[in-house]
């Protein structure tokens, strides 16, 4: 659905109508992705007592462009849309680049943000030189690098059960096609902009220290894009951090380990919304 006051931003609502009076889970995707990377988790929560807003970031798939050049600018746009939606109690869930946006949103939403779930997070989120060069010179090679590095060890990426979003699907090729679709639809500059935003973002530790709400880190043991050790400084900076490391998991945890990611989010949502008796 398109929220009527969201200034051109698209948000998937999990197959249910959106009700701002409910506790709301906001999902934010990572670089060169869109809302569909959260399809199982967002759909489940939307049918279990929560409202869901799974955004397409500006300039990504269904959201009007242009793509933005900084994490702060992305957070500003999302904040405007979240405010316009009228939600009162929010849990924000971000993946990779989306986890940085989640940190920034905490300061903007303030006390109405009751939790921050950071999936495949790292700080700093410096993109490797090899990948930056490929992004500039050979987008196809860059997407292959991302795709290979986003999935845990070699052949196992083609064997994961359950496959996402259901039996018969290929996690690996879906991820590649999604990146190709966004590049084809929104332009080759989107990936470069996203990566530049990740690399340039410097406010992570400050945002984490200032965050008043509990944080959940969901990390992949074998993640090559955002290794577990790269989240340590953020974890230490958060006043209330819970860490879930998925054994054998890579970077694309929502598709590689959909049930375990959902279980972690369910438990966290129940915890952060429970004092209000909502869920």
């Amino acid at each position, binding site marked *: 659905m398109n929220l009527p006051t969201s200034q051109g931003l698209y948000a*998937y609502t999990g*197959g249910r109508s959106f009700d701002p009076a409910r506790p709301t889970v906001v999902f934010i995707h990572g670089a060169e992705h*869109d809302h*569909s990377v959260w*399809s*199982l988790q967002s*759909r*489940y929560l939307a*049918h*279990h007592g929560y409202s869901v807003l799974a955004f397409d970031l500006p300039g990504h*798939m*269904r959201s009007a462009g242009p793509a933005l050049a900084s994490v702060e600018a992305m957070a500003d746009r999302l904040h405007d849309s979240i405010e316009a939606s009228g939600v009162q109690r929010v849990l924000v869930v971000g993946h990779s680049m989306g986890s940085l946006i989640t940190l920034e949103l905490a300061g903007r939403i303030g006390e109405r943000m009751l939790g921050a779930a950071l999936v495949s997070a790292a700080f700093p989120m410096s993109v490797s030189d*090899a990948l930056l060069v*490929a992004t500039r010179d050979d987008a196809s*090679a860059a997407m*292959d*690098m991302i795709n*290979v*590095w986003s999935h845990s060890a*070699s*052949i*196992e990426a*083609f*064997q*994961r*059960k*359950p*496959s*996402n*979003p*259901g*039996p*018969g*699907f*290929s996690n*690996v*090729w*879906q991820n590649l*096609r*999604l990146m*190709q*679709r966004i590049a*084809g*639809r929104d332009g080759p500059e989107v990936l470069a902009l996203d990566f530049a935003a990740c690399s340039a973002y410097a406010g992570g530790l400050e945002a984490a220290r200032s965050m008043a709400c509990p944080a959940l880190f969901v990390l992949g043991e074998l993640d090559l894009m955002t290794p577990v050790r790269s989240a340590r400084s953020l974890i230490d900076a958060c006043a209330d951090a819970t860490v879930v490391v998925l054994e054998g998991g890579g970077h694309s945890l929502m598709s590689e380990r*959909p*049930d375990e990611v*959902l279980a972690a989010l369910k438990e966290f949502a129940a915890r952060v919304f429970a004092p209000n008796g909502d869920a």
Partner: protein
Amino acid sequence: MTVRYPGFDTLALHAGQPPDPATGARAVPIYASTSFVFEDSDHAAALFNMERAGHVYSRISNPTVAVFEERMAALERGVGAIATASGQAALHLAIATLMGAGSHIVASRSLYGGSHNLLAYTLPRFGVETTFVSPRDLAAWRAAIRPSTRLLFGETLGNPGLDVLDLPAVSALAHEHGLPLLVDSTFTTPWLMTPFDHGADLVYHSATKFLGGHGVAIGGVLIDGGTFDWLASGRYPTLTEPYAGFHGMNFAEESTVAPFLLRARREGLRDFGACMSAHTAFLLLQGIETLPLRMQRHVENTREVVRFLAGHQAVESVAYPELESHPDHALAQRLLPRGAGAVFSFNLRGSRAAGSAFVEALRVFSHLANVGDAKSLVIHPASTTHFRVPDDELAAAGITQGTIRLSVGLEDRADLLDDLAQALKRAQKVA
């Protein structure tokens, strides 16, 4: 810096199946169960409502069948696959998912006879019309497209004349009109060609043929490349608008790159029911494990047989794209560098009786209606697979009364050549 995905041979053996977590079984277990126990009521509801991934009922999905599907998706570089009861069921599933009465298809006229029947005679009863065109005539493809057209369709290697479909050109034309290209890749298999790399959007196989390879199971598989932007096209409400048959689900919102597969499984398998059994999937998987080795040998044997026939005085012509005489020779060199398959046709000199004598004299080649078996096969298309195709369309597809189709198997080459030689001698006596 370069990265690499697992290679074809590795995927053919391992994709879709880790060692069985319950038993440690290395081979794919046959999950001969119609249905699967829910953890609790919430799990049941979540599976039914596509909130969680898993198996409910084997008409919709089955663990053994899913291994076959995910292996084929891996090999074709598609976002997913759906196994079906046959190749014909896969073709029907693709069409029924994309369109309804009032829709139109543009198809190559060089098709398997069963596919031609479906398009020419059966689907019109349901309001879906097809215009057949020469696969080599790009202007004809273009001229046949109407506002109601929803699909372009051809075979990677046309049956039986082996017209090589110019995938880059036909797919570009399709995309220019906001339409997807579906191809039957049965004759090529993903080892000889991955059609998504050349512009196709949907691929299906009669898995009965080279994928299985042993001639023991009927099955099909439909694979989505995830390349076609259904939303941007605006012509596919079944994928981009709420579906009353599944709680108002908008499949394109659920999955940006695979709404076709979601609808095909949730509607097509559910309602039409042409699913694959676990036993069939197991048999087909045994074949896929050796697909790379078999295809290599199929092609090597075929080249020898083609060379032999092309030089034989009893043979009028041989239609094989690796021959310079074939009209698609240059295209085949570009699209099929590993070989042009193991099924081809040739014309005998003399009467139809010579053809009958030839077929009946063969001893290593089996006279039957199939291709892609490990064993060599022969058939007379005009009286069998293409029996219901009118004469003018037969001629347009390059089929005459003297056309013989061979499917070259894995036997010793010398035995194949000896068998052909003695049968040709017999044919010459009645020519």
